[in-house]
């Protein structure tokens, strides 16, 4: 017996989690990952319907979703690199001024920057043997 609703439930949960991540996170790359999560939810629905109807239409659609996701990831990452090149940051708030001038900005006053986290102490071995000659290394 084919139980369709289980898969629809999981697909919609993934879709909604993707929406929430896309809207809350501020890192451009995490936002892109959330968009891909939404695509996963949709393809899970399509594959479940394909199995339910015992034909290939849903699976063919999912194959096209896969193609579009690959294109989207390539172009989006190129765009992200360009944006990073301009601002030296992956923060989406740097681009919140692109709207009309008279529309209120969605830029939220963020809480103060958390105080500088003390550097993590890693255990280290006592140096032994001969110290390598670092002076003659070519400049990187």
């Amino acid at each position, binding site marked *: 017996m084919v139980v369709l609703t289980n898969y629809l*439930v999981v697909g919609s949960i993934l879709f909604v989690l*993707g929406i929430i991540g896309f809207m*809350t996170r*501020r890192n451009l790359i995490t936002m892109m990952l959330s968009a891909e999560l939404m695509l996963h939810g949709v393809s899970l629905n399509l594959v479940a319907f*394909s199995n339910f109807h015992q034909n*290939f239409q849903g699976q*063919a659609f*999912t194959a096209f979703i896969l193609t579009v996701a690959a294109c989207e*990831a390539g172009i989006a990452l190129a765009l992200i690199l360009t944006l990073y090149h301009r601002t030296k940051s992956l923060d989406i708030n740097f681009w919140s001024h692109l709207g009309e001038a008279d529309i209120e900005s969605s830029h939220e006053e963020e809480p103060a920057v958390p105080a500088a986290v003390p550097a993590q102490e890693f255990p280290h071995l006592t140096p032994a043997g001969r110290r390598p000659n670092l002076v003659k290394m070519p400049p990187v």
Partner: protein
Amino acid sequence: MNNSVQWLTAHWQLALPMVLGALAISLLMPKGERRSRLIGSLIGVAAIGLLGGTMLRPTGVWIQDTLFCLFSGVAVVSAVLMLTNRNPAYSALWFALVTLSVCGLFLLQSAPFLASATVIVYAGAIIVTFLFVLMLAQQAGKTNYDQNARRSGVIAFTGFVLLGALLFAIAPPRAVADKSADSGEPVTGFVSLAPKKVEVAADVKPAQQPVVVRSETSGGVMPAPSVPVDEVKPPQSTSTSTPETFGTMRGLGRSLFGDYLFAVELAGTLLLVASIGAIIIAPKRSSGKL
């Protein structure tokens, strides 16, 4: 107001996991300084368990049920961890785990080609590209934008309202469906998908009418729309998609290169155009180095 309170108490099995889930997501989202994630995780586990207990229907085949619970549980939990992680590199790795579990669900739905293609494309290509970009563009140390989410409470609430609406349309909780089935009133759901049975007409030629889907009972609770859902015929297809060939790679290939030939060509062109576009958009070495 009174009606909505009555409705909520009648559908607490749907409403309670939504509230708990929104609470868990907004507690787990990074906000300011690092704090304990224990309470949020406990609430989230409670929401997932409650939702799974009320929403999911067992198939009766225990191995299928076990694999489904395993894959879907791993998918949902790692999706939440992906959203709430403070380090985008870990987010990408959790997303790879989501992809692998979704591929397991694809396998359970007899789509082996799509499962392997998704592993290759997502886990093999997209994740690696994301990690490359992270290494190129991520600032050293902890960044302010990764530590502070935007309006996580409001957005989580809105998202879970949407999820509640979707789940209500897809599958009403089991107790409600059972009650309406016991009372014997003819409820045909808005999308009465739940316990349909697929019958194959034996004497029909596969090229003409491959599958007849007939709904026997329905699990919805909303009043019936005007469209009857008794007989749903899938659209005609030139390739044979009988249940014997379903799930095989041969059948999917016949479908892709028969029914969807032009779309496949278009997809190939799209890939070409996208790769050219990405090369043009990406910053060049001459215009400054990354």
